[in-house]
């Protein structure tokens, strides 16, 4: 799920570590130590690629979503119906339980 959230952020445009954390802040709390493994995992799986650009006398690493990453988002979208069904099942069980 976290992978999908990061991909969703990058699907809006290229971004860097701190900005991704801030953008995700609206939907979930993500720490730096949590984000790093996610970014590495996405990079290793070719879902994102990186490039560097100068910023205030230093290099900043940007993340760019690849076609594989976009395909993963589309796959998630197609699975959403099944996920929603599971959530509804659990919520119904909570509502009906004593």
């Amino acid at each position, binding site marked *: 799920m976290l992978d999908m959230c990061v991909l969703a952020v990058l699907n809006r445009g290229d971004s*860097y*570590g*701190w*900005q991704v954390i801030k953008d995700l802040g609206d939907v979930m709390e993500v*720490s*730096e*130590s*949590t984000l*790093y*493994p996610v*970014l*590495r*995992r996405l990079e*290793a*799986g070719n879902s994102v690629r990186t490039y560097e650009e100068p910023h*205030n006398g*230093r*290099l*900043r*690493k940007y993340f760019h979503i690849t076609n594989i990453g976009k395909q993963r988002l589309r796959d998630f979208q197609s699975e959403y119906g099944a996920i929603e069904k599971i959530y509804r099942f659990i919520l119904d069980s909570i509502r009906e339980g004593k």
Partner: protein
Amino acid sequence: MTTKKEFLIRLLDETGDTHLVAYYDELISDRVEAGESESDVIKTLDIKRVVRNSEFETARIDLETETRDKRGGRGWVVLLMLFSAPVTIPLAFALLITLISLFAVAIGMVGGAAGGLVMGGLGIVEMIRISEPIGLILLSSGLYLIGLVIIAVLGVWIGRLLIRLYGWIVVNFFRIGKNRRNA
């Protein structure tokens, strides 16, 4: 109070991961740029957790890469098998036919030797007991068969010898030539 430099050095010492160090270097700088003080940022970073997460994820990525490589390897083998099928299937068929032929020759040699012995024996018995010319014909036929088997056995033996000779020539002459070129 730990400074950014001290934090990064400790991180490098504990993980050896330069990507991780670069990530935190950038992240701390970004947060300081956004208005936080360096010491406040460092205070929020739990180095033990950072190291633990990094080690876990590195191990996971290594495992995934290894699995993917293995799958990829199998894929290449399947592709190779598919593309080489027009050549390998006839070759395998030819090998099978050759093995069957060799087996047939071996059975023929054993049968020929047995037949020769039987005919020779019958020829001797025929010569002594009934008719000399028929016995001679049978004996000569038996000897002829035994002779054929001996020639076939010699042929196989000479063939093996020639193959060994060929191997010896390849090993001694071609390798020497190769070593000289390399030297």
